[in-house]
């Protein structure tokens, strides 16, 4: 199967999934949409305050004129774009609580792996040490977001780059040497699964 076909399949599948999720909102027009908006007011508030915070950091001016400009534009943008953010506020908070330990662990891994690649780079007999291989394995993860996070984490830790991921969780990873490629999927997958609440599934 060519890569273009794969992409087409991927897009189709995603669309189906989204349509399935949206069953109650996509069918009916404005009235239903309005009630969805009222129900998820907290989502707008979260989007609004995150954007206002970024605005305040980037503008650095706290006089009424500039702040009111920020409030107006953040309100407009959050009104237009909160539809795109499907998860509920509670789900978002739970995800955040689970994510912080994962990110800390990932930073530690990135640091360790960086040292390893730097060692390879400066080694006089580097050509004997490296042994590039394409590692293939199947991941147990199921959610799209979990798969994307896992793929990006693999790319972030040096020594491994994700070449391709299929929707079913087939990974193709380019590893620079044996020590980088062997631990996959291993601990990182287990931690991603835990961060997304898939550990027992």
């Amino acid at each position, binding site marked *: 199967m060519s*890569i273009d076909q794969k992409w087409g399949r991927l897009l189709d599948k995603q669309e189906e999934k989204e349509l399935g999720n949206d069953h109650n909102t996509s069918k009916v027009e404005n009235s239903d949409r309005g009630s969805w908006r009222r129900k998820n007011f907290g989502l707008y508030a979260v989007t609004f305050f995150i954007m206002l915070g*970024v605005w305040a*950091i*980037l503008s*650095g001016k706290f006089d009424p004129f500039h702040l009111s400009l920020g409030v107006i534009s953040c309100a407009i943008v959050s009104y237009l774009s909160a539809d795109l953010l499907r998860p509920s506020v509670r789900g978002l908070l739970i995800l955040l609580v689970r994510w912080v330990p994962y990110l800390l662990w990932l930073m530690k891994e*990135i*640091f360790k792996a*960086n040292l390893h*690649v*730097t060692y*390879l*780079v*400066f080694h006089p007999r*580097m*050509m004997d040490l*490296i*042994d*590039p*291989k*394409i590692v293939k394995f199947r991941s147990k993860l199921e959610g799209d977001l979990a798969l994307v996070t896992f*793929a*990006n984490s693999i*790319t*972030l*830790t*040096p*020594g491994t*780059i*994700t*070449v*391709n991921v299929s929707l079913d969780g087939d990974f193709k990873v*380019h590893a*620079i040497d044996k020590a980088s490629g062997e631990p996959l999927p291993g601990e990182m997958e287990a931690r991603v699964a835990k961060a997304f609440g898939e550990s027992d599934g």
Partner: protein
Amino acid sequence: MDIINIIVCVLLFSGLFFLTGGAVGILRFPDFYSRLHPAGKLDTLGSLLAMTAFALFNLHHFSLGALLTSLKILLIVVFIFLASPTATHGIVDAGVRAGLAPWTKGEKRR
């Protein structure tokens, strides 16, 4: 000698070390795919360390303006961490689409 200055120097030099490693790695590694390893990722950690040093140094004379500037510098790090793996993956994908076979052990370097 201020303790902050020492921390800033250590961070800057370790960042410089990783960035140099990235540059040397691009020259030394044998092929397209393996060169992406130092190019895409040693840079990420190197700039993280260097930017943290800048943000800390900037806070030396504490004020609201200095704090805002430091936060902006940290925002740069966040965007690098999002963009760098995505760009690396895009480049690898382009190589695979073009049909370039990865270098394996025993071949001549390209």
